[in-house]
């Protein structure tokens, strides 16, 4: 039954990814189509209200500037609201305002689509902040990422045209994708028992006559966009493990598909833009192949259980249940873990800190590679970056100028790609090392030995990949962790996005090279293997040593 339920979920994903990719193509191709009538009535007043009079194409610099400045405005608004939340409306539980370093960390975290949480929702945020800051940023950061992905795809695929208009993309991502989907999913979740209320924390007398307080709030409206936007920040401290966020296996499946469907559909959108659907299949196949390997490892490791508990003489046949919920069991937990770190959502339905060493290796490795589906837009961009790199390496091997989709790849693009690829390990490994040489970092580790190494490594990998899940035993609400992870999230998001927009801008200006018999093909099975090889090679060269020190060493000690 375990395997069957996993296969069904993957099957549904494959069925919806392609049509969804077509829908996204129609949203962002900017060709007139039927849906304009449906959404125009909402978009026209929005364009008017924000003062967008002409929607002409932008240069990559103007596009990047618009993206950064809009994010900056949202950060300013969100920061002010967090700092003042205690005095704002909808604070029935009398929650105080946030201190500066935590507010800094929180706002960077949500703007960069990371959703690393150093606060606990029940005690740290008012309902107003949950709505106007957290839920709002879940929409806007996802729409920002989506816009950039659309721009990059236009740059890679279009002949001599522009990469688009940021504000138009940003508005359309809201009106045509995220707002309608989020409203529908929110209502479905409520029907399946996820609460949605503005009433204060419940206080009731239990069956045995004790008093129980139960935190509640506008959960469903946050929950839906949390997954659709691959954000991942929970309403409650324990995220989707909380029975109010994720009450049953059916909501679990809906949440998995919500976070997975849009990233999985982007390769197909790209195939449409490239006017060659096989290109989309190549990217999708590469992502799915890597995903299946990771899922198998996670499921097998958790099902085999913790050797130390298997030896105490109890019936441990169910697998490693520490930190997991009975309604999800091993299958739905392992699947959720693998999808949430593949799609860089970072929500959790079980505690990743309690995963077996090899089970915990899976989310860590997915965040290090950062290309297995990936978050809103960014995963596709990263995978295309590796595709260009693969083409470049092959070009060098046969002594031919590398081409990608009919354009020459030259030193300028390769330098930008190298920056983007190298920035990622740099901002994971350097801060991790820094955390180990200071008491500020070491003092927060809650588990000793090799697992402690993994705790710190996971925190920075999660920040850099803009994932946001955590090994939550880490006592991370200190100025040291708030500020360092804040900076890592910031660099992790903007450096690679700006570098890739620059690549897109440079590609649009290039001469088109006609395809000949000698052209290296990027739309066949051979290229899938080359792409997987490139991803694994770069990932292994960069991260293998530290993985051996963390999860592998822990595995060997308790085996």
């Amino acid at each position, binding site marked *: 039954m375990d395997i069957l339920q996993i296969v069904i979920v993957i099957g549904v994903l494959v069925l919806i990814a392609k049509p969804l990719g077509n829908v996204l193509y129609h949203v962002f191709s900017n060709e007139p189509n039927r849906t304009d009538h449906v959404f125009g009535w909402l978009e026209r007043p929005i364009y008017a209200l924000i003062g967008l009079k002409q929607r002409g194409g932008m240069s990559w610099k103007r596009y990047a500037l618009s993206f950064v400045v809009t994010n900056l405005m949202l950060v300013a608004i969100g920061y002010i609201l967090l700092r003042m939340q205690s005095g704002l409306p909808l604070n029935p539980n009398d929650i105080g305002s946030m201190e500066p370093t935590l507010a800094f960390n929180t706002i960077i975290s949500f703007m960069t689509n990371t959703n690393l949480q150093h606060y606990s929702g029940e005690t740290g945020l008012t309902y107003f902040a949950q709505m106007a800051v957290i839920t709002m940023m879940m929409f806007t950061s996802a729409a920002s990422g989506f816009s950039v992905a659309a721009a990059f795809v236009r740059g890679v695929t279009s002949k001599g045209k522009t990469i688009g208009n940021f504000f138009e993309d940003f508005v359309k991502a809201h009106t045509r994708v995220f707002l309608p989907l989020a409203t529908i999913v929110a209502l479905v979740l409520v029907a399946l028992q996820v*609460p949605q209320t503005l009433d204060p924390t419940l206080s009731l007398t239990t069956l045995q006559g004790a008093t129980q307080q139960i935190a509640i709030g506008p959960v469903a409206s946050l929950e839906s966009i949390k997954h659709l936007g691959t954000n991942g920040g929970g309403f409650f401290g324990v995220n989707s493990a909380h029975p109010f966020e994720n009450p049953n296996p*059916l909501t679990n499946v809906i949440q998995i598909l919500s976070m997975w469907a849009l990233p999985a559909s982007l390769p197909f959108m790209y195939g449409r833009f490239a006017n060659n659907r096989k290109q989309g299949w190549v990217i999708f196949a590469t992502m799915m192949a890597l995903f299946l390997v990771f899922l198998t490892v996670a499921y097998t490791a958790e099902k085999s259980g913790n050797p130390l508990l298997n030896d105490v003489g109890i*019936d441990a046949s169910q697998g490693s249940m520490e930190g997991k919920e009975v309604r999800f069991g091993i299958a739905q937990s392992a699947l959720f873990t693998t999808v949430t770190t593949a799609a860089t959502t970072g929500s959790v339905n079980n505690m990743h800190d309690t995963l077996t060493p090899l089970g915990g290796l899976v989310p860590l490795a997915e965040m290090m590679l950062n290309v297995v589906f990936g978050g809103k837009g960014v995963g596709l961009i990263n995978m295309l970056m590796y595709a260009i790199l693969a083409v470049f390496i092959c070009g060098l091997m046969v002594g031919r100028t590398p081409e990608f989709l009919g354009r020459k790849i030259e030193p300028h693009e390769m330098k930008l790609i190298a920056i983007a690829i190298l920035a990622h390990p740099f901002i994971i490994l350097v801060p991790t090392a820094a955390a180990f040489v200071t008491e500020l970092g070491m003092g927060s580790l809650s588990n000793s030995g090799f697992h402690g190494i993994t705790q710190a490594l996971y925190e920075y990998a999660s920040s850099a990949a803009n994932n946001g899940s955590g090994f939550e035993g880490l006592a991370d609400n200190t100025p040291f962790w708030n500020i360092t992870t804040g900076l890592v999230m910031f660099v992790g998001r903007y450096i690679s996005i700006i570098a890739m927009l620059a690549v897109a801008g440079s590609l649009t200006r290039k001469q088109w090279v006609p395809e000949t018999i000698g052209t290296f093909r990027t739309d066949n099975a051979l290229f899938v293997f080359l792409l997987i090889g490139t991803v694994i090679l770069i990932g292994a060269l960069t991260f293998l040593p530290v993985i051996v020190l963390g999860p592998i060493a822990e595995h060997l000690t308790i085996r």
Partner: protein
Amino acid sequence: MSTMVHEGQETRPRGAILWIALRAGVLFTVLCGIIYPLVSTGLAQTLFPDQANGSLLKDKEGNVIGSELIGQSFSGDPSYFHGRVSSIDYKGEASGSNNYAPSNSALISRVQASIAQWQQDNPDVPIQELPIALITNSGSGLDPHITPQSALVQIARISKLTGISAVELESLVSEFTESRDLGVFGEKRVNVLKLNLVLKEKLEK
């Protein structure tokens, strides 16, 4: 009219971006941060009021005694079915667990303590039959469920303490065993609070 135009069409000064970005920031804060959640709340409260307010459980007299989604602590009274280990003792104003790594010695000692307690409370059931789910901490610390096996192994103890026959308890457990969602998703499970609510009513008869 196609909006895909050649580069350079957008000629306004860069300062305009600042102004548009500010207005977009305010507009989307209102649209996504205030209007959307309030509309969702209104729809949810109208269409699904019970679910939207926390799926509350009532006893026969109509008093609210909990939420069917949030577990309660029964560990103090061996005549009730016990739920899973909760480091926060099912205090629903928060959520969480100790996040013990598999290699953490505190995890092993906590499990050993649970086993010792089990042997004391359930002398008739050997620990080989004690399911791992019952003595591990759930992720949320609020898990309302136990596995069917975790309920069955407690019957010997409860039957002895309450005088209700084992057969009757077994049929009660099987009545309260929820199947997998749509017959395939997730795990079979027993809601501890619902089960104990009926058990309490039986005892009061």
